[in-house]
């Protein structure tokens, strides 16, 4: 479908106007010092939703959380990484928005593990928007609301605009960092969960398995015990929880756990 030129012109004006609104919100929070945390806060405020989170996806398909705007958003992000499903994970791989306007009523078959836990965490409607620049995938913006209901057309286009701004803001923060290093602006403010990867390394040695398999085992155990993946990872790192290959079981302070 081709959009008439007059409509394109009108859209361009609307886009400029809304972009200016985003830039204004960002400048109110950060002046001109880019900070990862303000992106999530501005995303929630600009789209008029309950909360927001941003995930980045690496070339090796590893997801990392860049920021979350509140504790519910943090729980939702953690949940998605644990069960490997949900709007943010789906949006990372999608061209378009992912939406579930009513998590409870939908009786979800798409996200069997995610939907009930997300509802428990306090989300009633969830949305995921790919963060990409042209064909380049960077990650996704996830948004939630504590009440059910779809996004209206202006919220929808605002969220797309915000996702585009996020993509550039993240790249702008990375600009100037030495090769193979994450920019300080990204590391300092971001909620990157690197302990998950440390724990995967430890479990790989404990169970004589690959790091990839260790990550899968960690996720499965977190889900089975209704624990956040990041919490389990911290317990592994401080050597409270470990994997015993002889019995194929997890141990907490040396005591075998039954799942």
């Amino acid at each position, binding site marked *: 479908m081709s959009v008439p030129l007059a409509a394109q012109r009108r859209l361009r004006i609307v*886009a400029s106007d809304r972009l200016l609104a985003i830039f204004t919100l960002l*400048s109110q929070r950060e002046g001109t010092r880019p900070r990862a945390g303000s992106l999530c806060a501005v995303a929630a405020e600009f789209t008029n939703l309950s909360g927001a989170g941003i995930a980045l996806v*690496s070339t090796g398909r590893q997801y990392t959380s860049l920021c979350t705007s509140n504790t519910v958003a943090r729980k939702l992000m953690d949940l998605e990484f644990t069960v490997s499903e949900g709007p943010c994970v789906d949006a990372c791989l999608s061209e378009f928005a992912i939406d579930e306007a009513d998590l409870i009523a939908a009786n979800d078959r798409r996200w069997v593990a995610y939907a009930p836990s997300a509802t428990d965490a306090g989300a009633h409607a969830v949305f995921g928007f790919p963060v990409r620049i042209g064909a380049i995938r960077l990650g996704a913006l996830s948004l939630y609301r504590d009440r059910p209901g779809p996004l209206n057309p202006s919220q929808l*286009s605002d969220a797309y605009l915000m996702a585009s701004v996020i993509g550039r803001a993240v790249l702008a923060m990375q600009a100037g960092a030495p090769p193979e290093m994450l920019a300080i602006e990204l590391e300092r403010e971001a909620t990157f969960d690197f302990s998950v990867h440390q724990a995967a*390394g430890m479990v790989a*040695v404990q169970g004589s398995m690959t790091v990839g398999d260790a990550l899968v085992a960690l996720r499965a155990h977190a889900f089975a015990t209704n624990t956040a993946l990041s919490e389990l990872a911290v317990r592994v790192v401080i050597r409270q929880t470990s994997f015993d290959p002889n019995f194929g079981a997890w141990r907490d302070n040396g005591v075998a756990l039954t799942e």
Partner: protein
Amino acid sequence: MARESLLIATLVELADNLVDDFDVIDVLTLLSLRCVDAIDVDAAGVMLASPGGELQFIASSSESMRVLELLQIQADEGPCVDCFKSGTAIINHELVEPDQRWPNFAPRAIALGFHSVHCLPMRLRGRTIGALNFFRKEKGLLDDEDVVLAQGLADVATIAILQHRTSLDAKTLNTQLSIALDSRIIIEQAKGKVAQATGTGMDDAFNRLRSHARNHNMGLTSVATMVVEGSLSGTNLDVPGPAKRH
């Protein structure tokens, strides 16, 4: 898909494309107009430094402002030029005739009806990238609240420009980001393997990876990759000498 939602999807995609290639001049013109609405000034304009360091006119709220911005560039004098060169704000500068500071600029500005000028630098990572100019027809002072607001608007302009510049080299930057994220993840995984294999903490594990990399003249990421893939055991890494505390 219903016709209506197809239309929305198309419009949304188009809006996305507009951001991919957003019109920085359009956004900054809009910002200049907002300045005139929001603070007690009669005209506003944005000038930006080119990669070579030359000031360029980008956007303004009116034609007379555009004329004055171009004049400053031609004559290499005026509030914007001074503000950009010094990186400091010029607030409440009253124009007089004859003007010793700006002999070419001042009479032209007065002829167009402007009697005071203000200019705020646009600063990014310690560098001045441009300046936001305000002209008033009245002689009086800008109040403090307006000055704060004006600095906020200069920040908005800076963010817009940063966004626009990033779009231009997005591809290279994303590759760098992706590599940086991947190598960071691999290093964390390797730290976990080394910590478990040697019964040490994460800091010790990291120091071992680093000193092994240094001793064998290898990159940290390469050593970490070997550990993660299993071709180098965590117990076979060089142990660093006594740790230097800082």
